[in-house]
């Protein structure tokens, strides 16, 4: 366990250093933030003053060394747009994205996994076809279209839910369902495929011949084996969506991290981009670590491997 922790810590440092350096140089190649800050009417002297105020007149390597020094104390500087602490801005937006993703993931896993198992078991029946159809529909309808359709039905026509915003539980329902629909469809497809593979394995035949109930075979043995690859998928998706469900956040005016990051790319707001990438990097490594721990819970073989390592 201690070794795993050490490995993950080292991985975290390397990932953060690599990512931060990459973002540092990429954003500087993309162009000059002074024009994005000043807009179209500023005179050349004002543009020069903006560059000087932001320290952008210094050689890139000098800026990089200063950036690495600041990174050690987690100081990313002030946002060029908001003129306030970049990390505070990122952390202010982070909970909204995290909440949306976690609720969406709970809905998606809660519906997608049982539906996938049922779809596999009844693959030739009506239920199996329905699961297949829903999975294809969920993956092929772009989420901004689904979002707008849900707004028109539940906010405009029925008036049950607010059409936008991030105030209160009611405003969470539509964006969470929209985001969940896409994740759920993918979960259904994959669980169905993994379950079909498991169904053909010897241990299922053995269990059947020993007279175990169908329910026990499906949900105790097959589902447990399916859970290992599913954990990896859930881990990846968690990181990806917390980092930014940009489309959903735009359609529902959800005040999350994704929108902030896109605005920052457009405005060449280097400090916010660097702080955002840092938080996302830490998050992804952390989620991977948790997934590693969960592997051991669901698969005793992995626990044994780790102990003997």
């Amino acid at each position, binding site marked *: 366990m201690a070794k795993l922790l050490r490995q993950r810590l080292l991985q975290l440092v390397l990932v953060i250093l690599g990512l931060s350096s990459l973002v540092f140089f990429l954003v500087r190649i993309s162009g000059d933030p002074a024009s*994005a*800050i000043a807009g179209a*009417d500023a005179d050349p002297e*004002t543009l020069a003053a903006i560059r000087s105020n932001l320290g952008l007149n210094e050689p890139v390597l000098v800026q990089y060394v200063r950036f690495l020094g600041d990174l050690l104390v987690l100081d990313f500087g002030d*946002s060029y747009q908001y*003129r306030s602490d970049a990390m505070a801005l990122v952390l202010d937006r982070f909970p909204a994205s995290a909440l949306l993703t976690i609720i969406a993931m709970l809905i998606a896993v809660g519906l997608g996994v049982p539906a996938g198992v049922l779809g596999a078991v009844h693959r030739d029946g009506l239920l199996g076809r329905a699961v297949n159809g829903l999975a294809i529909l969920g993956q092929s309808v772009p989420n901004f*279209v689904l979002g*707008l359709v849900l707004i028109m039905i539940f906010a405009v026509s029925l008036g049950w839910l607010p059409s936008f915003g991030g105030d209160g539980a009611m405003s969470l329902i539509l964006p969470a369902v929209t985001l969940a629909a896409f994740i759920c469809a993918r979960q259904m497809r994959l669980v169905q495929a993994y379950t079909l593979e498991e169904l053909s394995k010897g241990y299922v035949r053995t269990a059947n011949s020993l007279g175990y109930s169908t329910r026990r075979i499906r949900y105790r043995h097959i589902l447990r084996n399916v859970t290992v690859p599913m954990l990896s998928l859930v881990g990846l998706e968690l990181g990806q969506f917390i980092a930014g469900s940009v489309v959903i956040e735009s359609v529902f005016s959800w005040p999350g991290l994704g*929108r902030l990051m896109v605005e920052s790319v*457009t405005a060449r707001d280097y400090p916010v981009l660097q702080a955002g990438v840092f938080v996302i990097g830490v998050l992804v490594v952390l989620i991977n670590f948790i997934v590693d721990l969960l592997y051991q819970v669901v698969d005793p073989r992995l626990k044994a491997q780790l102990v003997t390592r």
Partner: protein
Amino acid sequence: MSPKTEVLGRFRALKVSALVGVVALLATACGSSNGDKKAEADSSPGAAGANIVVGVGAINPDLDAFSATSPPRSFYAYPVWSLLTRVDTLGEGAKVVPGVAESWTRVNDLTWQFVLRKDLKFANGEPVDAAAVVYSTKFMLDPKNEASIRGKLGIIKQVEAVDDNTIRFTMSAPEAILPRLLGAMPIVPPKEHARVGAKAFNVKPIGTGAFMVEKFVPGKELVLVPNPNSGQGKALPASITFKAIPEDAARVAALRAGDVDIITKVPIDGIKPLESGAFTLYDAVEPRTYVVDLFTDSGPLTDVRVRRAIAQSLDLDALVQGVMGGKGQVGQGQLAPSFMSGYCKDVTRYPYDLAAANKLMAEAGVSGLKLKFQTSQGFILNDTLLAQAIGEMVNKLDAVESVEIAPMEFSNYLDVYYNRTERADFFAWGMSSSPFVDASVQLERLVSGYPQHNIGYSNPKYDEWFGKLRSAEEGTPERQQAFCELSKIYKEDVPSVAVMTMPDVWASSDKIRGFKVDQAGNPAWELITKVTG
């Protein structure tokens, strides 16, 4: 099918926003709109004193009026800040009216004197006096303070207080419309501004506008309430809440759901669902001319015949009808739209004539042209569609082999504007004269060596007439003559094609009264009321 219909049909098919129609159909199938029941619940009884909720595309990170000359920045900032003068663009003509200053006189070509109102105080008790104007002007002129209005007002060389209520501005060159330009000059309470610093002040500014800031969450929400120290009379609403709803279709849906009372920037495809039902549409026009710059310093466009041929190949009526649903004003061969000071009746646009355009190209001896068109993407209404349609029209010329459309992200696009990265043959730009609503602001961009955006155009005759324009007083025949001469040269030389004046469509629930958008694109928030029942 005519070529025109074919072209328009092709780019119409590209409209992703047609989805809005599908969505609207689905909604209709599910039942009728619930109108504004939620907005109704929010409103106070009676016509005035209501809480108005406005859905806008974006809320800026701050309310800095020193960098807020055009909407949407100006329509958040101007109702709060003190401005030295105001350009009254609600009525006919855009007249300069008193703001903090009640009168002004031109002492000589380079000197103006302003007398301030004596009855004004900032909300924190500081007087609105000559010292405040001197402080604010010096702050604006210092490049370190990053005030983008310095681009227009940098001509001020010196500012001095003659007495407590009189200010004298000395300029480095004549500028006959200084009082109009000072309509963008914010006056701040010096002690408070110096105490908290510009950064903090810009988040909760103190002014003498009709409103003051009650709550501001940068990028998300802004709540304005009436300012008891207003220098412009009492505002009628109890509050105005701006909410950021970046997606166009979602903004329309929010109005239909009754979650907001007013929305800005109604997308062209969102107009139809609002035409029926409990909504009012406002067909405003921005003082923003959509122009296609033709870079004249290198390549095939150096030949004026090629530029004229391009101007004649564009069917502007079809563009406005096809891409903008008929909203906006078709360009008239000059940069100023018909409502703006500086419009010249004698100048008309080149007629759409493909045969004449082909003849001009043949005379110029060009063929097999491969042209590139740089456009913004999502910055100007329907910008990519406009560029595609224009590209298709130019492509109909015999001498043109292809027109490549290059949509750009905003910051990259600005780099081209500032001549910092490689520019192509065409560059589309929304040229705004807000908040001044005077054609000189747009015409200045074609003066030789204009620093911000130099398209390579230079004509000494043009520069000479622009010099005369700067010296000629507002409303005089000399000034109108200078405007007309500049527009004639513009038409003759075709450094750009003025395609259209951009539409600015707003919508509200039918409970809203007194909503008006001025010619600078700023609503008069203080006049809005809402009825119940």
